[in-house]
């Protein structure tokens, strides 16, 4: 089947819009005003400690997703999830803590990770540098794993809006609020 491609649709359209504008009466002076988010000094605003207030994977909370995958063999109750990101000048320290009770045992999962971070426009790039994760049962470590540096950086969409930080990576959406400066 022969497919007719029109690769210059936008170009053609904007040319005809430009022609229409020549015949249009315009109020005010021509100027292109960027959104304040584009011109804002975000990097500076990012520095400090942020705690997650809402974390979802698709329609499900991150905690439910974690319990349904990592601890799927266990029947858990009283599950709690805390996570914070501490943005320093070049590094970011991520600390995650999940706890729950299962058959009278206190289960814990801890993750600490140091990431290198850069911000370009609205895209946050992070690169794992060093870290560890461990699982504990009644305070006794049952699994510890060192996290090796990642070769590829992870890119996340970032929105900063009136004290809220929102990170979106596909279905993964984190809302955070700042609770401390560097």
């Amino acid at each position: 089947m022969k497919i007719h491609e029109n690769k210059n649709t936008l170009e053609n359209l904007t040319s005809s819009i430009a022609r229409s504008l020549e015949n249009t009466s315009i109020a005010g002076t021509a100027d292109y005003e960027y959104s304040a988010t584009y011109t804002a000094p975000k990097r500076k605003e990012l520095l400090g400690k942020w705690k997650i207030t809402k974390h979802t994977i698709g329609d499900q909370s991150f905690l439910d997703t974690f319990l349904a995958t990592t601890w799927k063999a266990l029947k858990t109750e009283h599950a709690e999830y805390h996570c914070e990101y501490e943005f320093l000048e070049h590094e970011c320290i991520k600390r995650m803590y999940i706890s729950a009770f299962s058959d009278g045992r206190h289960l814990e999962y801890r993750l600490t990770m140091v990431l290198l971070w850069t911000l370009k426009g609205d895209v946050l790039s992070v690169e794992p540098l060093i870290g560890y994760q461990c699982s504990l049962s009644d305070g006794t470590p049952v699994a510890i794993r060192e996290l090796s540096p990642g070769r590829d950086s992870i890119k996340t969409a970032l929105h900063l809006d009136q004290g809220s930080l929102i990170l979106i990576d596909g279905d993964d959406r984190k809302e955070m609020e700042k609770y401390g400066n560097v």
Partner: protein
Amino acid sequence: MSSARVFSVANQKGGVGKTSSVIQLASGLARRGETVLMIDGDPQGNLSLFFGASTPKDFSQLLPALARGEAVQLKEYIHRRVRRNLDILPVNNKNLKNEIPDTIIHEAGKIFVTFINSMKEKYQWIIMDSSPSNSPLERILVQSSDAVIIPLEFQLFSVSGLESILEEVNMCSTRTGRDIQVHSLIFTKAENRLNRVKTYRDVFSSFKIPVYEICKSEYIARSLEKSRTIWECGPASYAARDYQRILDKGFPVPV
């Protein structure tokens, strides 16, 4: 008091932020202390829904009444003070376009301009919402405007809608013999992370027209759900700053 400036907010493409822009701009002007009338010209009635506006008679009844040459009692049509300084002429009839023939809308259009002119002495700004289509209803809103505000997105079909509305404005100007201006283009839901945004910015910054960006904002989505304006929900948000810039630059305080 000076005569009101009348704006219609229009784009034949849906979901580009027309109603949201009417809400934020009109409430921003009212918050500044100026008197504003909003007219919900979109039969979907989302502007009326947002403000919880209801009146004995609505916009869908106004047009046939005008076409019949009836005297219009404004208090029956206008819901006063949905916010301080802010009134609305609501619409509560989603079937407006089916129930009222185009011929009546067309007939009402001539008198609607006179109606709007009579309202100009009562308000400092009149801002009209319109539906995403190209029918006689949208045409009478454009015809009775001093200027048209065109919200759009960084998206091809949205820009295609711009071409149509420009043609519409030029045609209405010719037909009425009035100088109907294009006030500005407003790119709503602006996101820097999208690569294609740069292309659109390059193209539109070369156009001889005021162009504003409103960032994609959680605050706008949240404010709409709670029937609160951006000024009430997130006055320090980037979205509020973006709308404030439009008010400061594009809506000078009436003398």
